[in-house]
């Protein structure tokens, strides 16, 4: 197997919040000890609800923020602050909101050429422009769009421009932070196809951040499920979707609506809401909402167990196991209704 492009080991990011004149600052653990490997041509999806730390993870990988602890390597070289300017070129990002991620006062051409103007000073202006035009074609836009302003484009087209800009420096890793969440279904499918094409053509490693499981199921190779800054489950896509081992993953899968009225609906209704990230329970972060919770879960924090398909749970679900507790699901759980069957 080839070596990973990027490796993160026990990556963590804490924030000090509050701490006015009298208040003691509290520590917000936005991301706590996350490990992963990114491989060229493969997609790692990070799934979770709001506040689970997925965007903070993206900011650390793209070198916007420094990790509080843990290490990150790119092509075997450690990513430290002193080397950021050099390494940055290899990691680029595409944001969720195509209306906010393009500078409204710059023309498309300028937007595309800016990364080159900053990082490839020796490159001739004509060469930069040629490369930008080439990239414009690659993402499916027309040459005449080169001199237009972003406000003249629709959301899907803007997202294409954002992708083109991210690819201008020939990065090895592309972080996609909810790249299709703000788009309509018909546009979303075109952008997903474009991403698949580009990955095949350029051998990119994707870190695909999303809350939408149906999109993740389509694009991902590996999945990390995050909850309150912790990775609670990690494994190959097929395994995670077919037989989730962490109760939270299972709940998330069952809560995702399926576009099939005939599908049987047994939702695992999670009681309560996400605890505040300032006040993460001492044991398993999911313990207050979990139906399998026992005393040990509230006291000790579980770690990811197996190497291949790991779950951070003391009582991981076995394949085929259902959430039998009557409180949670009235009807019998049935393997036919497992989400992989559609």
């Amino acid at each position, binding site marked *: 197997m080839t070596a990973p492009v990027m490796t993160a080991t026990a990556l963590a990011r804490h924030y000090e919040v509050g701490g006015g004149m009298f208040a003691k600052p509290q520590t917000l653990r936005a991301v706590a000890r996350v490990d992963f490997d990114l491989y060229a041509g493969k997609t790692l999806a990070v799934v979770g609800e709001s506040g689970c730390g997925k965007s903070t993870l993206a900011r650390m990988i793209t070198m916007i923020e420094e990790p509080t602890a843990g290490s990150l390597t790119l092509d075997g070289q450690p990513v430290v602050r002193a080397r950021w300017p050099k390494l940055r070129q290899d990691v680029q990002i595409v944001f969720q909101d195509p209306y906010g991620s393009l500078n409204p006062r710059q023309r498309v051409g300028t937007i595309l050429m800016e990364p080159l103007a900053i990082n490839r000073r020796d490159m001739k202006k004509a060469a930069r422009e040629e490369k930008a035009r080439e990239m414009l074609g690659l993402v499916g836009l027309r040459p005449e769009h080169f001199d237009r302003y972003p406000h003249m484009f629709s959301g899907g087209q803007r997202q294409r421009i954002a992708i083109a800009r991210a690819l201008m420096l020939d990065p090895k890793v592309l972080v996609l932070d909810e790249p299709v969440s703000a788009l309509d279904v018909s546009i979303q499918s075109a952008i997903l*196809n474009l991403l698949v094409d580009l990955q095949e053509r350029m051998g990119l490693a994707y870190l695909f951040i999303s809350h939408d499981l149906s999109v993740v199921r389509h694009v991902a190779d590996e999945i990390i499920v995050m909850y309150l800054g912790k990775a609670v489950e990690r494994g190959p896509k097929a395994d995670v979707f077919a037989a989730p081992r962490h109760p939270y993953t299972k709940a998330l899968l069952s809560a995702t609506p399926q576009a099939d009225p005939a599908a049987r609906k047994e939702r695992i209704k999670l009681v309560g809401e*996400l605890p505040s990230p300032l006040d993460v329970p001492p044991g398993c972060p999911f313990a207050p909402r979990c139906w399998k919770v026992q005393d040990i879960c509230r006291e000790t924090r579980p770690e990811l167990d197996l190497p291949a398909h790991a779950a951070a749970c003391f009582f991981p679900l076995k394949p085929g196991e259902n959430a039998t507790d009557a409180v949670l699901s009235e009807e019998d759980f049935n393997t036919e209704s497992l989400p992989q069957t559609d």
Partner: protein
Amino acid sequence: MSLLSVRNLSVSFATSAGVFKAVDSVDIKVDKGEILSIVGESGSGKSVSMLAVMGLLPWTATVTADEMIFDGHDLSMLSARQRRHIVGKDLAMIFQEPMSSLNPCFTVGWQIKEALRLHLGLDRRARHARAVELFELVGIPAPEKRLSAFPHQLSGGMNQRVMIAMAISCNPKLLIADEPTTALDVTIQAQILDLLTGLREETGMGLVLITHDMGVVAETAERVSVQYAGQKIEEQPVASLFRAPHHPYTAALLDALPERATDKRLPTIPGVVPGQFDRPAGCLFSPRCKYADDKCRAKPPPPLGGDLGYARCFYPLNTDERAAS
């Protein structure tokens, strides 16, 4: 007789570059206790048509309709005062952003009691009792305590529950939910949808669910109306819509869902929704439709019969379904 009956509703806006038709001859019918879902992408006019029914559009909008009857009242004939009496009481609405729909300056309890005071004229004690009762109904834990909370102290899901509590405070006959779960997380979305369907069963109110999420539609709705560029292009019961869509747009939209994909490449719909400046002369979907011919491009197709889902198409799909059903 149906609860809400709107025929030939059109809404146009005066903008810097002329008149923009946001809703184009749409018919809406909701029965008592029914869940109708209006589906469409952005720019399909799905929210605008409902805001027009509520009378909540700004003055730049021109609303015309052959008929707009809610529960026996002709909405287009009512004075502003009479309309206010109905809107908010019998006809309630909740919005996508629970955070911005609530006034951040007042406690949620004050806001819900204000609604009760205006519409029901209850005294102080009765208002408080009713507010607690409503909070319990929508599943807010510790209602007494939460009444004195400000919107920013509650999570998005909790705020949406408060909005729902306010909307149902006067036992509305019809609740319009405009993308009620789009801003919420999946696990919270499931809770809110369950709450809405549960309330429908308890109170027998009609529910109009405006959404772009096909998954939500499939799991919640009974009848689905698909809108495209301001027109209603198809309407069917949910099961048959997903099994056998008649309009090519509906079919393409369903095919484009990643979860229905069979290949790494998803089927796509080329082009974008027509905007203000490029409305086609014929069928609005014709520039993007793979079945379109010269006839489609030349003149707009009228809606077909109910057995074909009122599809606005000359060449409806899945026509053999008609024989089966």
